[in-house]
């Protein structure tokens, strides 16, 4: 167990007094490494809460720079940082909040060439990206590297949260047990056209942070095998019980996918054709 400084004992006192966390759990968080894809709507609250919780190292991958249109929901950035790489902006916010946290930045796209090597260094992965090709790539890479993946996604006023860890939960599915491959182009809203209620990202991302911390501490009930669906307009949570698909192309009995594949970015195709 880590020898806490006096400042750490004070900073984490509300965790340490929880029997489920305690000094041991807090120590574990300080020694944990989490990799996040996306420093956007979901990544913002995730990074904030993981940093506040004292997760020892947070890796953040995002190739974009902060844009004015991000600030309606991407609360880790601010107006003074417009034009700055999002990962740098996130680093500044996190370090101002909690100097205990080491921030590793990846200011480039996650691809089939680099993803496995990067996530190998981490204990857990958070998906807060904004496109299907990356979602499938991260799922597959986490499966091959046996990393727990806490996935969040949004559409307008709705959100989904689910944990994938088929390596640790024999009945637990991977993303491809839900959706074997990306949907066809015509059925994906163009990224910039798809509106989103800003505060929805806070609700969904915060649940991801909660689940990530539970996984790191190994407490409570995992969200593996359960899809939480949030409808902000109706203020309803629904829960679907998921199962591992024996026919899954990745984690099934006779997998057809034995290495990473890259799908084309539908939004980019559409933008190019406009």
């Amino acid at each position, binding site marked *: 167990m880590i020898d806490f400084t006096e400042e750490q004992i004070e900073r984490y006192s509300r965790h340490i007094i929880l029997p489920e966390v305690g000094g041991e759990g807090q120590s574990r968080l300080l020694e944990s490494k989490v990799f996040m894809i*996306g420093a*956007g*709507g*979901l*990544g913002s609250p995730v990074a904030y809460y993981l940093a506040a919780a004292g997760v020892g190292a947070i890796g953040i991958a995002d190739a974009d720079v902060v844009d004015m249109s991000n600030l309606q929901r991407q609360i880790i950035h601010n107006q003074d940082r417009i034009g700055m790489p999002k990962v740098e902006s996130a680093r500044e916010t996190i370090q101002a909040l909690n100097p205990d946290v080491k921030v590793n930045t990846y200011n480039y796209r996650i691809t089939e060439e680099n993803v496995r090597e990067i996530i190998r260094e981490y204990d857990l992965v958070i*998906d*807060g*990206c*904004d*496109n*299907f090709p990356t*979602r499938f790539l991260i799922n597959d890479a986490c499966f091959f590297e046996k990393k727990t993946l806490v996935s*969040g*996604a*949004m*559409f*307008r006023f*709705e*959100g*989904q949260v689910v944990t994938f860890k088929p390596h640790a939960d024999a009945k637990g*599915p991977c993303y491809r047990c*839900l*959706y074997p*491959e*990306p*949907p*066809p182009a*015509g*059925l*994906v*809203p163009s*990224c910039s056209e*798809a509106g*989103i209620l800003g505060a929805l990202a806070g609700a969904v991302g915060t649940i991801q942070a909660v689940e990530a911390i539970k996984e790191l501490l190994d407490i409570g009930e995992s969200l593996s095998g359960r*899809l939480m*669906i949030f*409808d902000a307009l109706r203020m309803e949570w*629904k*829960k*679907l*019980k*998921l*199962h591992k*698909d024996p*026919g899954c192309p990745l984690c099934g009995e006779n997998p057809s996918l034995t290495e990473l594949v890259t799908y084309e970015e539908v939004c980019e195709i559409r933008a190019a054709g406009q």
Partner: protein
Amino acid sequence: MIRVLLFGMLADMAGERELEVPGKESMTLADILDHLQRLFPTMNDAMFLLAVNQQQTSDMNTTISNGDEVAIMPPFSGG
């Protein structure tokens, strides 16, 4: 009646989030989908996961009876 719940783009396509389909003798999940795809032809190309009474299933022969709830959930990509 069978309660059908639609989410995300599927709800937008249908213009409804919740539908009721009259139950028939020995009805299956495939019958429900046929019925919906006739009502909303754009659903034919859509990708989604299916759940009967909050339990994921990919078995189209699953029997559906009055009072059952069928959820049709597309993937979301926004982050």
